[in-house]
């Protein structure tokens, strides 16, 4: 009996030891590991090195690891809408929403060893919000509410606003607003176009034009223990077949923009569990602009009919197999705070599930508008394979179902924006990609006086709703304005026609850990949280 008890005790002890060891091993799997070089492919290359003046992921992917921003978007938040501090240790917003005060981390050093203080944050934001002559700031309009940026002491930055704006905090987490060194800016505002000098987790090693960008671990990084990687190498690879081949052959771990569904499938079938796939709705969208000064698109019944003709749900099912689109969404990315709830979405023109009823309504509207037998028009599309071309073909097919005769004209990508700007179209594919899902940023282009209002609609109600949602302090109140704007834009007036939300697919080596997909390919490129299992 005593013998049996002893054996049992030994067994229990052994089980406990094994379990503990197993637990430790499992924990070790999730615990960041130091070392290694992350290699990623970038389909584009930086024009200049100055993020305040640029607008391409080709810059942000290889260079973001050299910099910090005041705030950042939580690298582990899948919606990409949660602001957290980067150089800001804490912050405070006055009750009237007019003063934002940020306390900065102490002991933050630039890569040249000098200390980063509020003077540098102020100089960087002054350059973005009030650009000096000769400096272009692509995002200054997003800070129109800011009256002044102050640096009352070395570790405090204060933004005084002319009016309260609900997007301000998130806007200050923009991945483009790198903090530059004030002394350098004071000497030469153009220095950062050709040089790198930040406070980020990786220091600059070299940029071989057309070939690669190399960064190495910043040993004096202020966020102790980070980064985990010894360095990183960004390879510039334009061809998507080569990008896939690079990941497949182990020459690269990841590509941070997106692969297409067939490319994802190809990698998964070739590499099995050596590949990890992360997917997310993408804050990029193709929508159809109709020129409001050209007949019959001046008639909202015609515009509504064009939207009603689209079977978005069936389109989503089929197109998502071949190209970069998937979700049926409204004016905000599905799954984000201001996204349209499905029940409300279905009430918008062309979003109901009964496609026969939608198309019957479309035909009725065309009849009412005096074009009962349909009409012919030219649809201009951008000469980019994905997702423009499949989407264009799908749209034409859908419009034919209500008796419209549509001719597609492909315009070379380089000539596309000038064509839109000239208004040289009847109906054209328009596009937008955001860096943070935020109504202020995503909807500004639909305001009547916007430079990007290519369809040239004039709608005071939309202008007013945009202003109201932007200044609403209460999120629930803001949602109401956003929904009202959406109804006006996509339903009542159908100024534009939203197609399908882009869908982001990151198929990466399973060795890569600590990186979370977000709806924006401009976010989460600092690489401070990323590590490699081997």
């Amino acid at each position, binding site marked *: 009996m005593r013998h049996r008890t002893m054996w049992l005790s030994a067994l229990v002890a052994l089980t406990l030891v094994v379990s503990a060891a197993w637990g430790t091993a499992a924990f070790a799997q999730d615990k960041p590991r130091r070392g290694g070089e992350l290699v990623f492919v970038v389909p584009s290359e930086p*024009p200049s090195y100055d993020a305040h003046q640029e607008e391409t992921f080709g810059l942000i992917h290889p260079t973001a690891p050299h910099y910090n921003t005041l705030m950042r978007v939580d690298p582990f938040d899948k919606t990409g809408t949660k602001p957290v501090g980067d150089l800001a240790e804490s912050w405070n917003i006055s009750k009237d929403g007019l003063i934002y005060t940020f306390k900065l981390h102490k002991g933050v050093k630039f890569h040249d060893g000098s200390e980063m203080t509020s003077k540098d944050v102020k100089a960087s934001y002054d350059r973005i919000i009030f650009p000096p002559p000769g400096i272009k700031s*692509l995002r200054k309009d997003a800070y129109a509410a800011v009256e002044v940026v102050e640096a009352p002491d070395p570790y405090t930055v204060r933004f005084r606003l002319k009016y309260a704006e609900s997007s301000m905090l998130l806007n200050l987490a923009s991945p483009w607003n790198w903090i530059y060194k004030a002394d350098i800016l004071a000497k030469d505002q153009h220095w950062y176009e050709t040089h790198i000098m930040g406070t980020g987790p990786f220091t600059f090693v070299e940029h071989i034009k057309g070939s*690669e960008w190399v960064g190495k671990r910043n040993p004096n990084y202020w966020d102790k223990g980070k980064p985990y990687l010894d360095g990183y190498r960004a390879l510039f690879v334009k061809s998507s077949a*080569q990008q896939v081949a690079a990941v497949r052959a182990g020459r690269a771990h990841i590509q941070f923009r997106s692969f297409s569904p067939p490319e994802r499938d190809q990698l998964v079938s070739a590499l099995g569990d050596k590949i990890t796939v992360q997917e997310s709705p993408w804050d990029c969208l193709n929508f159809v602009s109709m020129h409001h000064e050209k007949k019959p698109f001046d008639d909202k019944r015609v515009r509504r009919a064009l939207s009603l003709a689209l079977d978005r749900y069936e389109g989503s099912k089929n197109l998502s197999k071949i190209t970069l689109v998937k979700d049926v969404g409204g004016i905000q990315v599905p799954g984000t705070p201001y996204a349209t709830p499905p029940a409300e979405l279905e009430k918008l023109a062309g979003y109901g599930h009964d496609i026969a009823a939608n198309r019957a309504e479309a035909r009725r509207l065309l009849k009412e508008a005096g074009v009962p037998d349909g009409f012919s028009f030219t649809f201009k599309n951008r000469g980019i394979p994905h997702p423009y071309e499949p989407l264009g073909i799908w749209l034409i097919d859908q419009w034919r179902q209500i008796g419209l005769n549509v001719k597609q004209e492909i315009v070379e990508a*380089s000539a596309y*924006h*000038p064509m*839109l700007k000239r208004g040289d179209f009847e109906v054209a594919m328009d596009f*937008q*990609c955001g860096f943070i899902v935020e109504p202020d940023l995503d909807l500004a282009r639909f305001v009547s006086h916007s430079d990007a209002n290519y369809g040239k609609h004039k709608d005071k109600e939309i202008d007013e709703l945009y202003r109201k949602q932007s200044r609403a302090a209460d999120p629930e109140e803001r949602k109401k304005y956003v929904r009202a704007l959406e109804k006006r834009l996509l339903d009542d007036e159908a100024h534009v026609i939203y197609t399908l939300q882009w869908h982001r697919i990151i198929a990466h080596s399973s060795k890569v850990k600590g990186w979370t997909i977000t709806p924006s390919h401009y976010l989460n490129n600092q690489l401070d949280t990323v590590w490699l299992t081997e």
Partner: protein
Amino acid sequence: MWKYLLKRFLLMFPTLFGVAVVTFFLIRVIPGDVVELRLAGDRGSVSDDLLRQERARFGLDQPIWKQFVVWTTGVARLDFGTSMWTGSPIWDEIKLRFALSLQVALMATVIAVLLALPLGVLAALKQDTWVDYAVRIFSIAGLAMPSFWLGIVFILAFLIIFRWLPPMVYTPFWVNPWQNMLQLIWPALAVGYRYSAVATRMTRSAMLEVLREDYVRTARAKGLVQRLILVRHALKNAMLPVVTVVALEFAFLIGGLVVTEQVFNLNGIGLLLVQAVSHRDYTLIQALVMLVAGIFIVVNFMMDAMYAWLDPRIRYR
């Protein structure tokens, strides 16, 4: 001889000027400009003020004749300006890519010549035998297969069979010869094979023609050994058309390997030119076209000089 060469040399300059005029004006006919493309980015919108400001910075708001004068004055001083897309000096954009393209062109030429000369001569000597047929099949296959296709086959074979891919980053030969060769030997083989096919056929037909000439028959009748007949009398005279083909193909390779460069992710001149056109980077396009045209013109000049050496009748004309 020197008068002939001087005349050829001086002719290079008006040709280059003609290229400059055509390139400068033609590129501006294409819709779209670098400023809009760069500023519109992924958002697809940019204010008119910003567009005006940037166009003024690049001098694009000036009358076109003035832009041309400014540019040609710079070119005369060998200053091609800065890239409108990156803001870097043109030479910084081109130098590494030029080194890579030049190396691929040289390697492909060496491969082509090493294959073409012996095979072409052999085929001519063994005309209508199985050797001739084998060489003809080999060269026709080379002509029929585009280099980029052969490149894709290489890549797929490496990837599927060996799970390997050639290095994706260019390492100069003097830094690491092994890495350099691992990357460049495959495109050089793919391109060199097609190139050799053209040269093989040209060598074969030129040799066949020369071998039937009276002076070769006379040499044989004199009892000269076959090797001397071939090398001293036949091959040198058969080389004129072969030199033309090899030289022109070499010049083409510097800027014309766009698809092959894409297949192997080579950071070469051809791909840079395509990118420059899609960015409407006027200064870079102009510089690249001038570079490629300059290479063609210099190669032509060298070809003329070689003609004069190979065929004395030319220099006395």
